[in-house]
């Protein structure tokens, strides 16, 4: 069983019931209520189905209810494994070709209309949607908040790391899933808010009504005066040969399985993309005991925060810049990935190719806003606004402010006189800033008293070290005049409490003091299992990941609130201020095969995943037909699948650019954004409970 039984940050939930189920006749065990996709990953199943078009094996891709690639047969019905909870005795089968529609067992049970209304429909219960809901409710507006996941918090639920930003404004230094719990409990306590969790909004209609698939079982129409779309973002797919193989999936899918469901779906991963999502995914992998062969980045600089990158590098993960994946292949699932450096036109330099043995390739090539309901609402002339990643891809901390600001803007549109706290605007501005300059720091010479050493030098919005220091001896040196400024030690009063070390989200603060001529003590943060005792020698690395020495552990202290251990090490005086981290994974994990494998001809890159249309097929069609309108590609079924072109539409502009062509008219988006069965659409059999509504605290049925 690929289960994570001990994790440095997350504990497995108590009281889960183990149940038996079968997949293609094989008996497995899993936990009741967990996503079937995770139960299967834990059982070691990676190829779920074979595609109706060509029989190609299909694995998960988004694990987020969006893409439909994980559709299997659950007790006779085609279902997305990632949003279907596991139950005792389930008969699961891979989908081979098209599903069979079960024969009717009973006559039609009658339709039941369900309709509620609210002043504002908030789509998405992530940081932006939750923050917006609080503000809307404060203004006395009734809100229906619908989210497609069972727990609110959006992607915060998957974030086991500490957040940047400021403690006072956005819970900086607190871990994402802890922030989610705080926000959720705040919203659930609001009487004028109807929370519909596990309930995706599947369509917005001309008559100012939205359709919500409540609990993935009932269809409830919500009439609203205004709509706030905070539906987050979806991961972009990437085009490389072999991108359709089981084992190639989104970094978000990976975090869902590892951090939310405590499943270890991989042994060794390669990560595509060095934005914060990719960097953090690497860190989460290491924390879960999964090796990271490397991160590839096609640009010539790391795309995410430097502190995140540093953290990964000093744990032994190489970041390959100006490099791309040229092929991924394997028998039925990912077995190898080949990467190569690229020239200035991003063409691979084959003589630089290296092949790695990995079982998983994580796609972290950026996010695109889930704003289609917003665009549709605007087309219909509704009062509508976006917030969070649906508005602009940024950190969760800025999404909290963005949500508040959008809520007030929307309230104004609804005719309310509201005062906007001007400081929110500037705070959001700062929190969503791209990293600023990288400044140099003066070297620190250890003295007999404790002193913090900062390895952060890039301006990012972050200040927890200054606010947790009990003696206020860490300050931001004003340059920009915001929390973008870098922290410095005032030079006095450090008591060596290590609160700053434990709080730093970038793990970029150490404390050092000299013991004698030869030795110093260093305190550094450790977010891995502490399965060793004082006296143990640990491989100490510098910021660049260079090995310094084997350092003796003197003491370990657990800081409860930030859930972080601080290790005190005995380090030779010359290395003390360079000491930055402890190697987590062996060099063997990042070694490539002796020779690059270019002999294995990989399958073509897939652009439309649902219908499995390859780049080659699209090129061929585009060469034979003058394409002015991407809807023409529907002739070869691009965009005709279950995801409603939500995955492939972001790839088309990129492909067109690579073909040297101008963008064409976009694919048309229509409801439903997620498939809903006819029986569920009419709430079959519920007519007998006339008047009953799932949203009992709403304003009831009109």
């Amino acid at each position, binding site marked *: 069983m690929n289960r994570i039984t001990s994790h440095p940050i997350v504990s497995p939930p108590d009281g889960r019931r183990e149940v038996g189920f079968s997949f293609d006749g094989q008996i497995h065990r899993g936990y009741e209520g967990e996503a079937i996709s995770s139960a299967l990953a834990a059982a070691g199943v990676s190829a779920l189905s074979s595609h109706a078009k060509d029989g190609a094996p299909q694995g998960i891709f988004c694990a987020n209810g969006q893409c439909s690639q994980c559709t299997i047969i659950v007790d006779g019905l085609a279902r997305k494994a990632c949003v279907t909870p596991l139950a005792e005795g389930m008969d699961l089968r891979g989908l081979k070709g098209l599903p069979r529609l079960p024969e*009717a067992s*009973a006559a*039609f049970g009658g339709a039941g209309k369900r309709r509620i209304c609210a002043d504002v429909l908030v789509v998405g219960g992530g940081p932006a949607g939750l923050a917006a809901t609080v503000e809307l409710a404060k203004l006395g507006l009734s809100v229906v908040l619908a989210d497609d996941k069972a727990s609110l918090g959006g992607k915060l639920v998957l974030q086991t790391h500490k957040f940047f930003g400021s403690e006072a404004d956005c819970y900086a230094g607190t871990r994402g899933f802890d922030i989610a719990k705080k926000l959720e409990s705040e919203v659930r306590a609001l009487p004028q808010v109807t929370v519909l969790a596990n309930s995706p909004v599947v369509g917005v209609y001309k008559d100012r009504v939205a359709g919500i698939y409540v609990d993935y079982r009932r269809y409830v129409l919500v009439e609203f005066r205004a709509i706030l779309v905070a539906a987050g973002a979806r991961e972009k797919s990437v085009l490389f040969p072999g991108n359709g193989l089981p084992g190639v999936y989104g970094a978000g899918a990976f975090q869902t399985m590892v951090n939310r469901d405590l499943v270890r779906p991989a042994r060794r991963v390669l990560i595509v993309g060095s934005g914060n999502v990719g960097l953090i995914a690497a860190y989460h992998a290491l924390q879960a005991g999964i090796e990271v062969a490397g991160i590839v980045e096609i640009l010539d600089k790391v795309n995410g925060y430097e502190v995140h990158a540093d953290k990964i590098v000093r744990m032994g993960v190489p970041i390959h810049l100006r490099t791309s994946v040229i092929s991924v292949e394997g028998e039925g699932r990912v077995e190898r990935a080949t990467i190569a450096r690229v020239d200035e036109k991003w063409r691979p330099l084959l003589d630089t190719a290296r092949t790695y043995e990995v079982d998983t390739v994580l796609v972290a090539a950026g996010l695109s806003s889930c704003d289609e309901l917003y665009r549709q609402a605007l087309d219909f002339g509704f009062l509508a606004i976006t917030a969070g990643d649906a508005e602009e891809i940024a950190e969760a901390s800025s999404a909290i402010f963005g949500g508040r600001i959008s809520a007030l803007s929307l309230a104004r549109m609804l005719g309310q006189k509201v005062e906007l706290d001007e400081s929110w605007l500037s705070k959001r501005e700062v929190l969503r800033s791209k990293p600023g300059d990288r400044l140099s720091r003066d070297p620190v010479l250890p003295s007999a008293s404790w002193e913090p050493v900062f390895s952060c030098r890039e301006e990012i919005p972050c200040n927890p070290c200054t606010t947790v220091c009990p003696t206020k001896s860490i300050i931001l040196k004003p340059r920009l005049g915001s929390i973008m400024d870098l922290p410095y030690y005032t030079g006095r009063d450090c008591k060596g409490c290590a609160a700053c070390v434990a709080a730093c989200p970038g793990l970029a603060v150490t404390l050092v003091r000299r013991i004698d001529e030869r030795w110093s003590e260093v305190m550094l943060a450790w977010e891995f299992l502490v399965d060793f005792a004082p006296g143990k020698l640990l491989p100490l690395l510098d910021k660049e990941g260079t090995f310094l020495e084997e350092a003796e552990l003197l003491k370990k202290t657990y800081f409860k609130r930030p859930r972080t251990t601080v290790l005190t090490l005995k380090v030779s005086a010359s290395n003390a201020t360079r000491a930055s981290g402890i190697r987590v994974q062996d060099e063997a994990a990042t070694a490539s095969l002796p020779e690059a494998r270019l002999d294995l001809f990989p399958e073509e890159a897939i652009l439309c995943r649902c219908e499995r249309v390859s780049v080659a097929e699209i090129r061929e069609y585009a060469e034979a037909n003058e394409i002015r309108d991407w809807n023409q590609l*529907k002739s070869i079924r691009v965009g005709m699948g279950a995801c409603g072109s939500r995955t492939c539409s972001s790839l088309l502009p990129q492909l067109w650019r690579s073909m040297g062509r101008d963008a064409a008219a976009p694919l048309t988006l229509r409801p439903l954004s997620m498939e809903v069965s006819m029986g569920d659409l009419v709430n079959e059999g519920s007519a007998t409970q006339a008047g009953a509504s799932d949203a009992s605290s709403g304003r009831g049925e009109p």
Partner: protein
Amino acid sequence: MKSCDLVIIGAGSVGLPLAWNCAAKGLKVIVLEKEASWGRGQNRAAIGGIRATHSDPAKIRICRESIAIVSSLKAEKGFDVEWRAGGYLYVAYDEEREAAFRKLLLIQKSVGLDIDWVNSDRVAALAPGIETRSLRGGTFSPGDGYASPLMTASCFHKLGMDKGVDFRFGESVGSIRLECGKIVSIKTNRDEYGAPLFVNAAGAEAADIAGLIGADLPVHPDCHEAGVTEPVERFMEPMIVDIRPDNESGNYYFYQANTGQVVFCITPRPQVWGMDKDNTSNFLPLCASRMLELYPRLRNLKVRRTWRGMYPMTPDGFPIVGYLREAENFLQAVGMCGQGFMLGPGLGKILSEAILGGSRPSKPEGSTEYGFVFEELQAYRKFDGMELLK
């Protein structure tokens, strides 16, 4: 100004096959289309049924041609347009419907249509799982079927391209120059086009186009919503039509396409006039509940997508095919009443033959045998009847 033999306004269900047919017969054809590509008006919203079982000779004739053309595209032209002769099944669950169908059957059989009454067992065999309580049977026409409007339009576009049709996408008609009762040229946002003959195949916008020369064409679009499901293994063959109305809807119909997806559509009650293409919240619960009542097996079938399109209606439910008094060289192929997809291929063939045969206002059929078609569908008929099998 660009000159050619024939200018067609509209690259849709009607314009595309007409352009191909005329170009194949040697005419130099220019097609003006305001959208970025073909079939972006009513074609894309069509659900795909093609039947010859109508209630009048002209439509029967045209659609017979359509079936012959569409069903042979794969074998003859190498285009798989997903044609399937699944037949049309009109189901009867009450005496009223049975009587109406049986009465119509007499007319249909008299013109030689392959259609007959089938009993409830046969209905259940054609559509396993259909509700059999109070099912009386229905009429079944096995030669009818369905194809993909998208693939068919793409096919006709490609065939037209191969024959040298000059498609002008992104060009909307701005004005029409009329001199002495004849159109001299048509001006678009980009260019001006002259030809001895012009065809109005502008679908829902046909009346606006005719309005440019002061003609009052009785074509008024109304809006219908449709949807498509996930694909599943084939479980039913025919296009099923239930013409019973209820409070909110008229007839509804659905079939399982070659892709395995079920495509469905309903007629709203009252009709919604206009050009609104936006989805409404009422459609899915309404259409799904009517379909489930008829066919409970569909309860587990997942709806994938919905859309809305126009039926360019005429007062009597029949198309308008013929010349206008205002311009003797302006042929109308309009008012398809939601059947442009099934009428287009046959009409393209018939009109091209008429045009080549010397079609003109006094003798629109040219030197061909299609006089009855033009007689029946002319623009100056009384419009006092009503199509029985809309």
